[in-house]
């Protein structure tokens, strides 16, 4: 049986699809977007996290231990008296994950499960096995930067698809996400060819993805798509850095200090339904409101 790595299961995700959502975060992502919301997402193997701010420095986590699960990390995961040390990432068999999800059946009947990440399609085979066992509505939030033979079979098992499309310029895409966007565009075309309905999500990162040119180029690319349901322009949430500190990483995204440039009109002009979603935190000014 296939195994997969999950870094979180969140109850009642509010932006992850219709109704009551259980959001399963799969660990590992092919992209490394500078603005990533979930820094624990990119690497697939489990990672140690430490709440440094509350650490009293007793040093017990550094003492040798004999727990087999601690061996790979050089730190004891069980010694911290304040439970400040732990792992991002838990390995599940497909059956185990399906069972855990189906355990929420009473709730999922009024919503469903949403696979997010990380990049769920990076663990496509595993997730296909899980998805086939779940009799409730399923959704996936994906960056689509995986080979089509991994992406499409999984996508076709989903009831709702939220596909991220961040930038049309290949050079810029490589610069800010670490990879070309060719595979992403190919997968979006593949979805359309398969007549699989999908939603495109464009995270509006001030100074990176929110230029008029980028939004117009994306709108141009999508204007021929017949299975596109709508485009969602997500206003960026500036509060990511806290999570970076937990895994000992710095956050230095070159995000412009102003609210995002929202151009739903560029999509509307091309006949594409587009909505601007001002998600939590989106209204908080980076500096002063007079920047509007």
């Amino acid at each position, binding site marked *: 049986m296939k195994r997969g790595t999950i870094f*979180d299961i*969140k*109850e*009642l*995700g*509010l*932006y*992850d699809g*219709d*109704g*009551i*959502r*259980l*959001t399963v975060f799969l660990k590992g992502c092919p992209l490394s977007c500078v603005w990533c*919301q*979930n820094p624990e997402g990119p690497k697939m193997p489990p990672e140690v996290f430490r*709440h440094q*701010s509350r650490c009293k420095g007793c040093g017990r986590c550094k003492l040798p231990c004999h727990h087999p699960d601690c061996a790979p990390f050089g730190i004891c995961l069980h010694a911290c*008296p*304040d*439970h400040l040390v732990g792992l991002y990432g838990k390995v599940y068999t497909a059956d185990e994950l399906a069972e855990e999800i189906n355990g*929420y059946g*009473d*709730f999922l009947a*009024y*919503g469903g499960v949403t696979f*997010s990440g990380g990049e769920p399609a990076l663990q496509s085979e595993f997730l296909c096995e899980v998805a086939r066992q779940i009799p409730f509505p399923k959704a996936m*939030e994906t960056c689509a930067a995986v080979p089509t033979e991994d992406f499409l079979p999984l996508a076709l098992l989903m009831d709702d698809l939220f596909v991220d499309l961040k930038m049309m310029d290949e050079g810029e895409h490589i610069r800010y996400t670490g990879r070309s966007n060719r595979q992403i565009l190919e997968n979006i075309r593949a979805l359309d060819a398969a007549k699989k309905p999908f939603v495109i999500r464009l995270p509006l990162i001030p100074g990176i993805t929110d230029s008029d040119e980028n939004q117009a180029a994306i709108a141009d690319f999508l204007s021929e798509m017949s299975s596109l349901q709508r485009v969602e322009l997500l206003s960026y*949430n*500036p*509060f990511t*850095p*806290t999570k970076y*500190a937990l895994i000992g990483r710095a956050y230095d995204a070159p995000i412009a200090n102003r609210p995002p440039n929202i151009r739903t009109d560029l999509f509307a002009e091309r006949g594409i339904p587009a909505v601007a*979603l*001002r*998600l*939590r*935190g989106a*209204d*908080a*000014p980076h500096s002063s*409101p007079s920047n509007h």
Partner: protein
Amino acid sequence: MNHRIQALRNAVLAGDHKICRSPFPRGKEAAFRDPALPYSMRTAIRFAKICDLERPVVAKDSRIVLQRTVIDVPEVCSDEEMTALRASYFLHERGNVSNICPDYAGVIASGLDAVLISIDGKSGQLYDALRLEIAALYRLCDRYSAEAERMGNTAVAERLSRLPRKGAKSFADALQLFRILHFSIWAEGEYHVIVGRLDQYLYPYLAADLASGVLTEEDALELLEEFFISFNLDSDLYPGMQQGDDGQSIVLGGCTADGEDAYNLLSQLCMTACGNLCLADPKINLRVSQNTPEERYVEATKLTAKGLGFPQYSNDDVVIPGLIALGYDPVDARNYTVAACWEFIIPGKGMEIPNIAALFFPSAVNRALHTSLADTPDFDSFLDAVKSEITAEAKRLTETVKNLFILPAPFLSMLEGDCLQTGRDVSLGNVYNHYGIHGVGLSTAVDSLAAIRQFVFKKQTVSPADLIAAIDADYAGYTDLYTTLRYADCKMGNGIKEVDGLAVTLLKTFANGLNGIRNERGGIFRAGTGSAMFYLHSDESFATPDGKCAAEPYGTNYSPGLYVRNKGPLSVIRSFTTPDLTKTINGGPLTMEFHADSFLTEQGIRSVALLVKVFVEKGGHQLQLNAVDVEVLKDAQLHPENYRSLIVRVWGWSAYFVELSREYQDHVIRRQEFAV
């Protein structure tokens, strides 16, 4: 909300109406403190005195009038007399009738002349008092009428001279007469005077006015809004534990006597009016069931989103069978309403005291811990010891509430049961004379037992002696044990079957412990899941085996422990719908806090609405949701230890507010300050 209502609302919020107030004049109490007079007559004399002291306040464009201008209602007993009463009797709280829902409908329909006619020639303390009171109320209403005349408000002038005597002919009449009756009961000295099923007893007036064209829906909403504003005129004068604890609770929806869905246009208008006004009163309870349509939950969630802390939901599918099982007539059970906080009571038929005592589950665990833990061979034996403690405590509590005395309430009696026919004051008893006992700190007790099972018996990593010593030392010097227990996963609210099973056991034991015991008025004792103020203020504060320190309060009512970090709202609902709540139906809701921003999008509102629907379908009895506001967040910064379970949700992920960096917290708070 139109301009006039907006102005009225602003005036009330600004306190403009308070300038007309004056205190009850000193020395004038003698008239109703004559020990030779029966208490009912003293109560009536005091009522008449207050009516005559009142200063009519009518604006030119008012449609609903009457506000208290006499600030205080002095006791009918002198301090010495009160002390003597307390020495000889059990007095509940202030000694007055409280937490009671009258049946307003009859008098609203026929007016007080009909009451006078029905008691004409009858003698008795109740009748004598009532005649005096009604006459005084007529005088006050006539003075209001004259003042309205003077102000050029002919509609109010006509209404106030006719309505109290003859009863309501229109929706506006009915609202005004309710106001008069409600005002009178408070002025008589009773408190926590419940509004009840307003959408049921006033609906016929609305329906008739709409049908005849006297009113449009828009007019009706405006009237209702003005009416609801009137609930905020005197509420600061009403006695309660805290400002706002005034019992002005309304119950909407539910079912008819035949069990049909009773939610009607008036229920809808009440929801809309409350949503428009965003005032503290009246407080809305919404009766729901598995047949409640999804849209109704969505509407209700929009109200929650305003941050008012209501509606509070109660589940007919659990409450009604629970009440019937306790012996309530099915028709009465279907007519239940909600008392000042959350206790289920029957309008017009109860002289119930649903908050007469409180059982502390953690105390039972604590006693068993000290007397039995060292000697018990296994967890089940320890649990048996805890059960014995609960049973004994339940029985003991029933014995502490004997020799009850309640001050008479003649005006209120007119609206209760068959008091008017029998001449017996409601304070002496009614159809239902049950007492309710709160169950405080359930989740703390459950978490404590779960910790004992896991660490003392299963893993055997904690010895009974160490645990007891740690508890007695309030965990001073036991840091490791403290954190082990405190951060363990075995907490109620994580949806763990065997943990939640302990709650099943404790609640069942509590209910069984009260089963079959009668109070001196022939009523029973009802077990509940409420905490009232006891979660904060109690003498029974000590460290508990779940890692709670002595100074830390319990969770509110039927909710997870305060510092417990639960898996999420779905698991909380799973845990708290596990027990069979029909057995502990005195009331006490699961309270859940959501960040106000969770309600920003239609999608968010729908998610929360559906969550309520699932709660109801899974057999939860009562639910209260909060959209947490900036004041709470600021307090959480000052006292993070009290807010460990406060969740803020950001995009697709959530975080515990207190675990976020200061900078992040400030951001969230600043964002709230910009919120409209």
